[in-house]
């Protein structure tokens, strides 16, 4: 009778979603030459069900209980995980047991090294932990080799997988980051506007006696060169500092300051307040823009091994993109500089529009406003 009541209750809910996080273990393999370094996080609640951890049966698992049961845990889990090099079995060396808190509770962290005695070219992983108890369990595997990370989810339907490692292609990776750099400078309107605003006065500028055109192409080249170099040196510097995590600024501050820098240089084109020092301005704000680039690089999945190559590639990409823009801008500006259009429309009206846009950016970024929502 009792069982009938329970059953009736079970069916009353229209839909019970899997609301709680399900059972997962997290396995990370880092392959390096002859070794595989492994970190394996297994939920204490799952281990309690499979092996039994709550020795004193009081509903709480202590560190002492976990340590007492570690031999049984190891016997249990290692009979359900097999990591092999192509040339055969690897020797396991256990490192100290640790604990970590995930969003759904405490996990035992098993750390161990596998010594495979020869260079690892192919790894074969077989995983069947808890599948015999709970078919909803999943094993989430990350396997790293140099700059490659592969991700696999083990399930009752997928219990075995093998990875072949090719020599990492640094040149390919470098090219990929150069492309990213170019793409970023072109798609990041704020960087572009800043640079162009700074360059506009190099061919013609407003002075107390009206518009003055620069007739000397060499002098223009020199000015532009100085500004671009100062900007480049500055942002390369902070980009490197930020990516290496030596300096870290809150992104809200960085993004607001970038918007502010655009406002400043655009105002300067309407009512000049710095002239010869343009390269100093380029340098000072270049430092801020560098932090902005770094946040992009962050999202591009950098791995420690390939940091240098990626950073260099990205930076060169940014410079390349910049150079292309300057080489289009310069002849065009030089040709148009004496026309009314350049002075009135581009310099004056254009700068007004830029001030407007960048002020909106600034307000959005600094005060977390969302204009397009209103």
């Amino acid at each position, binding site marked *: 009778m009792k069982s009938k009541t329970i059953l009736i209750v079970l*069916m009353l809910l229209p839909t019970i*979603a*899997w609301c709680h996080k399900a059972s997962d273990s997290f396995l990370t393999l880092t392959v390096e030459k002859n070794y595989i370094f492994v*970190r394996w996080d297994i939920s204490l609640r799952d281990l309690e069900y499979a092996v039994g951890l709550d020795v004193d049966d009081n509903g709480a*698992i202590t560190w002492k209980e976990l340590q007492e049961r570690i031999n049984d845990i190891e016997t249990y889990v290692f009979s359900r995980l097999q990591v092999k090099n192509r040339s055969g079995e690897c020797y396991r060396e256990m490192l100290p047991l640790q*604990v970590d808190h995930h969003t759904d509770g405490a996990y035992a962290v098993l750390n161990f090294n596998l010594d495979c005695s020869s260079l690892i070219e192919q790894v074969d992983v077989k995983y069947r932990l808890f599948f015999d*108890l709970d078919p909803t369990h999943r094993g989430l595997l990350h396997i790293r080799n140099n700059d490659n990370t592969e991700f696999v989810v083990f399930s009752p339907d997928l219990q075995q997988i093998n990875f072949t490692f090719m020599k990492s292609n640094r040149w390919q990776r470098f090219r990929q980051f150069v492309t990213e750099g170019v793409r970023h400078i072109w798609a990041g309107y704020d960087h572009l506007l800043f640079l162009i605003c700074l360059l506009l006065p190099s061919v013609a500028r407003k002075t107390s006696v009206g518009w003055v055109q620069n007739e000397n192409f060499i002098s223009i080249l020199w000015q532009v060169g100085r500004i671009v170099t100062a900007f480049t040196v500055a942002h390369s510097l902070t980009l490197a500092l930020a990516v290496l995590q030596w300096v870290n600024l809150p992104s809200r501050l960085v993004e607001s300051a970038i918007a502010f820098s655009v406002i400043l240089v655009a105002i300067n084109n309407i009512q000049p307040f710095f002239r010869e020092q343009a390269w100093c301005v380029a340098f000072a704000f270049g430092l801020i823009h560098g932090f902005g680039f770094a946040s992009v690089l962050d999202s591009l999945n950098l791995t420690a091994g390939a940091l240098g190559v990626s950073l260099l590639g990205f930076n060169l990409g940014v410079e390349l993109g910049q150079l292309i823009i300057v080489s289009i801008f310069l002849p065009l500006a030089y040709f148009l500089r004496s026309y009314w259009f350049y002075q009135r429309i581009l310099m004056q009206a254009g700068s007004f529009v830029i001030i407007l846009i960048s002020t909106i950016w600034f307000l959005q*970024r600094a005060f977390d406003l969302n204009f397009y929502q209103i």
Partner: protein
Amino acid sequence: MTIFRIIIIGLLGAMMGVLHAKPFIPSQDDQVLEKLPLKLFQSTTSKKIQSLRRQLKTNPNDWPSVSQLAQYYIELSKTFADPRYMGYAQTILNPWLENSKPLAQALVLRAVIRQNAHDFSGAMMDLDQVLGVQSNHVQANLIKATIASVQGEYSLSIQHCRRLMRRSLILALVCQSTPASLSGNAEISYQMLHQIMLTETRLSKQQLVWAWTSFAEIAWRLGYFEAANLHFQTALQMEVQDYYLLRMYADFLLQQRRPVDVIRLISVDTQNDSLLLRLALAEKITRSKKLSDHVFLLNERFLLNRQRGSAFHKGDEARFHLYLLNQPQEALKLSQQNWRVQREPTDTYILLKSAIAAHDLKTIAEVKRWLTVHGTEDVLIEEILATQEGKNNEI
């Protein structure tokens, strides 16, 4: 480029460090690492489960024990909203389902498990196999009616509710109130439930929670907000742990612009994704400092669910994208996928709201047509369609 998104991503990144503390070696032997809710709050059930497990080790072929243990697991999965118990149940049932003529009860239990994994067609197959032999099987009819109603097959649902009449008139009436209220008979269903609930003494506590929740939902859709609030409160007073009730009441409070009450209702239970979402939606309205933490947590849980191939609550995920990440297109995609599987009123709300936010007139028209065909009466849908804003309420 959406600045909001950049800031959110920046925040998420910043918090990674906080929430993913590094693994450590505890300094004290008696440091408690994990508490086991089952043993702490359900010690009787826990002991029964332990003894049943022991029993099955010595005698694995004892069906009554298997069936009882499976039911305990399913019940626990519901109590703690924890899928692993469904997995345990499935494992012990599997050997009993392998022969050519499985027991009806084994099939019904598997149907419950499949229903919860949102494998509705699998569940229906099991139920049809049972109903083919015993067309008046109470449990099979009740589950089939529930799934049909969730999928928007209201007349099929009512048909199976009616088969319960001979066994329990009240169960049949409560069962059919939801599908009937969604297909043109909201007021009648409400009045009928009103009669039943005033005099009802035969239902168990859990059944009462179910009945009062259905009652509250119908009142809500009819626009009887005060009555709905009272009915939800009555259901809560039964003191039965019921996540569906909490979810619906939280949605009701959000719609009624009572975010503080949502926070009071949920506050500590952040293990449950669905409730966490509703908590975060309330925190967005009250501008709580905890919002960014909770958005981060939700983002991580949804991501993980996708990675492990169990992204079942796409309706919730759509709400997360629409209201907390401000991504209407993504929300629309998810709520459309969700609507292909289930069509409870909340599924329809989020689909409409995403479609409005993403300016997808075709989808709006399609949903409207569907609602008209079924004669669904729902003040919330009228409100959503009237404002065409899609952003006034976070339900």
